[in-house]
């Protein structure tokens, strides 16, 4: 991933986000809760481990990057992706939880798409994994709909006035994936090499693919 642009806020000291430990420190509470639920037979301990492993190691933005790269090299796939995203994404083996109703929105020279969930954190898990903290936080949730160009500027992306910015607020169970523009000069690259260049941020719409 590229270095942060000047002016982009860096993640601060951990105390900014993790306030001082209180008597009800979440780590202790979760440990106590998990033990209780296992003891009551309400959750299966091994199932918890599989769930965590799935989202830490198996399901992440590399999935979406493959979808994007496939669309870049295969015009017929691109068409399928834009008309029936669920089916096209499932062709590559990705489907399911928080991605049951996918729509892919394509960037072009005239249109730039940006995805947000102002009300909570809705995000296309099967293709991007779990959302980053910034996506789920108040600054992005509040500002993406009212000042998308300011948000993009904060990410180092300045768009001309004649480009149309479309912000997709994920208010229902439809999940949006941005199909970024293929960068110039990549004509000779393999699909795998192309996928390696596609970033999560570009598939949310806060960046272009370099």
């Amino acid at each position, binding site marked *: 991933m590229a270095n942060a642009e000047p002016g982009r806020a860096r993640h601060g000291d951990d105390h900014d986000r993790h306030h001082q430990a209180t008597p009800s420190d979440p780590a202790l509470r979760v440990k106590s809760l998990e033990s*209780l639920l296992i003891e009551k037979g309400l*959750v299966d301990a091994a199932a918890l481990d599989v769930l965590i492993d799935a989202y830490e190691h198996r399901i992440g933005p590399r999935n979406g990057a493959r979808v994007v790269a496939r669309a870049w090299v295969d015009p017929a796939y691109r068409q399928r992706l834009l008309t029936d995203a669920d089916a096209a994404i499932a062709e590559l083996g990705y*489907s*399911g*939880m928080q991605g049951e*109703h996918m729509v892919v929105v394509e960037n072009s020279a005239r249109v730039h798409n940006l995805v947000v969930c102002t009300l909570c954190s809705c995000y296309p898990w099967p293709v991007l994994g779990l959302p980053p903290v910034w996506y789920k936080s108040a600054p992005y949730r509040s500002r993406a709909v009212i000042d998308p160009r300011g948000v993009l500027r*904060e990410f180092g992306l300045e768009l001309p006035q004649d480009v149309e910015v479309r912000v*997709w607020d994920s208010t229902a169970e439809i999940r949006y994936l941005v199909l970024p523009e293929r960068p110039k000069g990549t004509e000779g690259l393999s699909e795998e090499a192309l996928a390696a260049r596609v970033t999560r941020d570009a598939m949310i719409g806060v960046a272009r693919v370099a």
Partner: protein
Amino acid sequence: MNGVHDMGGMQDMGPIQYEENEPVFHERWEARAYAVVRAMGAWRKWSIDAARYQRELIPPAEYLRMSYYERWLAALIDLMIKTNLVTRAEIDSGNLAPGAPKSVPPLTADQVLPAIARGAPANRDVPAVAHFTAGQQVRARNMNPVTHTRLPRYARGKYGTVVRDYGVFVFPDTNASGLGERPQHLYSVRFAARELWGPEAAAHDSVYLDLWDAYLEPA
């Protein structure tokens, strides 16, 4: 409800705090909290809409102070108590209530990946009258339910254009409160930025919202 979670258009929330190479979970407890919430959801005692509503019910100062998984944890505890899966005393003590029965978890390790791959579709194969069609001008209703809704305040009373009919989907406003799925048509509706935010907004920009039939009226 008009809670602080309905943040679209709010200002002065500060800079976006970007973290390079951010891990999926910053602490192990977050990973455990995530997994516990998902595993408890398998009991189907509450819908995803009820779960979202429960997070919205966290008192506003707490909601804004808490980290993401702290909110998940707080709402989970509320839901489990509300649905009699656990008692407050059990939560506080960490111990089973005397004589409490032991259950069998519905989600076992071998079922996790298939369950993830299957997901939980929100569309319903039932007939419903579509009151609007693509291309039609609509107005988002001026509605202010005290319970769960997915019509953000910033769009209420605003004029937009139906771009697409996505078909029939579970209606969260009723589903969140246990009043039934009441499936109805869901539309992608485009609102010009200037319609939402005034003449200072960029001329060509727009916001697309996914809105249910009940949120809209003819313009």
